[in-house]
């Protein structure tokens, strides 16, 4: 999984590089366009187009029947039954391409989330760095950790050791624009965490987590921590937001825009690409 994530990270970094200094809507529109087309093609390749067309025709026939015989209750009821049956069939036929798409869709969403889901840091901004330890960390034993930051960042306060949460926190600040790595020195060796002080549309990793399929699926923006480390996560609280796509500051707003644009693109191109959906 981590190898796949590394490939995807590189792929998305390269693909979105030309749009990094433009408004997020620009890159997102292009991504949505490509994604909409890709979805159509996958849908076409993995679905039974003939059967889908037949089922859709039968549904339309049922609707037409209801309009034609609107004074005949028995005919209407029979047509409604047919429509429901054909609808179920349509859903069954659609499920196959959807199953094909669910995995790549999840991977794409996870990658895009870390490009569009968080605001960047700017010089002067302060942010929390949270290090979570394993549940079996010896209760009360203060971890002998140290945080080192490069010259573009500064440690403002910390560490705060919270035994009950197995957690160590620092407050750091951004001093200059740039891409940096924090270094957490632990008895088991140094661990790093990326920090990006940039207002460009770039990949921002909020979590660097211990290895695990779900961890890597949901937080693919950075390599996993070493399996042997007692550190379970290093979390950097980038401000939630979408870099101003709609002015509505939510880490999920971009996704709404992405889905709407993708659906619009898919519907607009279904006839030129000769796809029945």
């Amino acid at each position, binding site marked *: 999984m981590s190898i796949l994530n590394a490939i995807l990270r590189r792929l998305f970094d390269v693909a979105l590089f030309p749009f990094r200094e433009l408004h997020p809507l620009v890159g997102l529109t292009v991504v949505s366009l490509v994604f909409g087309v890709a979805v159509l093609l996958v849908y076409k390749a993995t679905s039974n187009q003939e059967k889908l067309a037949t089922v859709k025709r039968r549904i339309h026939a049922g609707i037409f029947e209801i309009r034609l015989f609107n004074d005949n209750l028995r005919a209407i009821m029979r047509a409604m039954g047919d429509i429901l049956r054909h609808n179920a069939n349509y859903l069954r036929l659609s499920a196959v391409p959807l199953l094909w798409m669910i995995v790549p869709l999840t991977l794409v969403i996870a990658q895009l989330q870390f490009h569009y889901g968080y605001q960047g840091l700017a010089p002067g901004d302060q942010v929390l760095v949270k290090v979570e330890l394993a549940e079996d960390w010896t209760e009360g034993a203060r971890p002998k950790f140290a945080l080192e930051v490069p010259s573009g960042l500064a440690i403002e306060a*910390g560490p705060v050791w*919270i035994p009950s949460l197995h957690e160590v926190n620092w407050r750091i600040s951004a001093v200059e624009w740039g891409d940096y790595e924090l270094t957490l020195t632990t008895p088991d060796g140094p661990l790093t965490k990326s920090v990006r002080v940039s207002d460009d549309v770039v990949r921002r990793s909020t979590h660097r987590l211990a290895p695990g399929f779900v961890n890597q699926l949901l937080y693919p923006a950075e390599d996993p921590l070493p399996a042997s480390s007692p550190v379970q996560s290093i979390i950097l609280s980038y401000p939630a937001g979408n870099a101003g796509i709609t002015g509505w500051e939510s880490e999920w707003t971009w996704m709404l825009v992405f889905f709407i644009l993708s659906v619009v693109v898919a519907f607009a191109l279904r006839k030129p690409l000769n796809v029945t959906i």
Partner: protein
Amino acid sequence: MRGLRTLQLGPSRPTRAFKRLGAASLGLLLLLGTAGCGGGGSAPGDAAEQRVIVLGIDGMDHALTRQYMDQGIMPNFSRLEKEGTFNPLGTSAPPLSPVAWSNFITGLDSGGHGIFDFIHRDPETMIPYLSTTRTSPAGRTLTLGNYQLPLSGGDIELMRRGEAFWEVLERNGIESSIIRMPANFPPTGKAHRELSGMGTPDILGNYGTFSFYTSVLFAFSGQSISGGEVYEAWAEDNVVESKLYGPTNPFLIETEKVTTDFTVYLDPDEPIAKLVVGNRNDDGTIDLQEERVLAVGEWSDWVPIEFEPIPTQSLRGIARFYLRSIRPEFELYVTPFNFDPMSPDLPISHPPEYAEELARATGLFYTQGMPEDTQALREEVFTRDEFMAQAQLAGADVRQQYEYVLDQFKASSSPQRLLFYYFGNLDQTSHMMYRVLDPEHPTYDPEIDTKYASVIEDLYRQADEAVGYTLDNMEKDTTLIVMSDHGFASLRRNFSINTWLKEAGYLTVRNPNMSNDPGMFVNIDWARTRAYAVGLNGLYINLEGREPNGIVTAEERPALMQEIADKIVQVIDPATGLPAVGKAYQREKFFKDRGEIEIGPDIVIGFAKGTGGSGKSSLGAVPAEMFEDNTEQWTGDHGMDHEVVPGILLTNRPLKQAAPRLQDLAGAILAEFGIEGFPARPETAEKAQ
């Protein structure tokens, strides 16, 4: 054009990317805008260019300014004086900020604008209320069990009457930006841009209520804390769990405050902690709103707080946290909950989104009208160092925002425009630190006060820097006016008007032995009282037909007023051998404007320099002592006779129309734009006798 300007200047760091899109489309919009205006609008240059900047520095004293200018501490003021004028500016009677600024805004005296004091009394109920703003709850509600659902909105009303000078400007096509103007909440909505200033409440509806959490049991037991609430909070296993208390839940029938949980995790070894705001669930998890790391002695940045009175409804506020101590005792101060300018629940700006624009440009900021927490120092929750640190944070907000506002003013394409910007830091800090200038003050302690000896001087230096910044950054040919609403003086002695009225036989108490009169007139025997005092400078006649238990007839009133006015100026403070009162002004004789005169006190007391009104008397109490040394932290004041605490007027060129008094200044500003005859008084207005 208004929308265009907002697009050009509004977005800030959170929406920098949007700015790039905005910049791309700006050229096109400019073209469209120009094309749209070209047909019927006036071409640039049609109107004579005229720009006026007015800096309002609350509490800047003329004598002190003169002294600092002569000492070379205020070089920018001296530079302005050489180019223009520097004069004392006659203030209002009484010289209290809401009154003085209303004089400035309307060009009327209190008789015209209806603001006579911080506190007025309702003659029907005899309940004191804040003079500038009136709020009323929802008119009709639907009751469902323990809940009540409002069927109509509540209301908030600015009580200042008269026309604001910027209304006249806007009517004449002159763009005005009125930023942090006192006595202007809610904003009039008549200027191009407005941000309300002094008088803007916190989200509890008060002028500012701080919260103080302490593990010192009974720390404030038995004491009445003014301006704040004290809550007990202690650590268990290095975790402090408590609540932030918001306003009363408007959806509950029973009075109950809406709350949000917060948790403080204390480092077991080091003086540092993590603050987590968010409601705690039964399983121990927290619905995280915000989290911060704070070392002891540190202030947090602004923390957004959300209160949920009922699901789907929320009240938003912002607060800063100050971690005072974690060991041996836990002490945490939380500022009053200010409106979140990103989404204020009450109107604090015009247009409504202007507050958000300012926040995006320069960060979240204090929206409450008087942000310096003087009450926390008065109640000794703060030390003087802590007060100064908090006041500097508040002042920094204002100065930072000024740079943006000045840039915005410069960027405007309107040929005729005015900017008013208010600085309140000097006034509030002077109130608390003025004793450093007065070794004769009862609380002056050379060992302590020498440490703060330059505090007032620094405030004046900062004001000078603001003027210097303006001079360096304003466009050529801009008229710059620097003014203050009143001056300042040391407050050494307190004089209780109610006690004097009692001693002089005008007021009778129910219980002569009451040791701790709580105020609100509870100890006044109305059937045998002819006059009483409430507010800082107000003296009222217990008038038949006006007061609910009035005993003085309308015919008796003028003679009684004259008698009291004559006697009170003869009162001598036994400790100093000096008069306590400089002048007593009978309202019908003193005020020129009459439209709202019925609201005001019958006599306005102008205390002698160095003397102020007793705080207890101002709330309707009759304390035992007529005179007291002022032993509070509040050591500077201006609620004296208006003639002894003038403000300042500094301009970079002689004004076209003279303004010897604050009340004349708005007319002089309008005259700079060629507008005469402000304020417009009704023909029927009575003239002063």
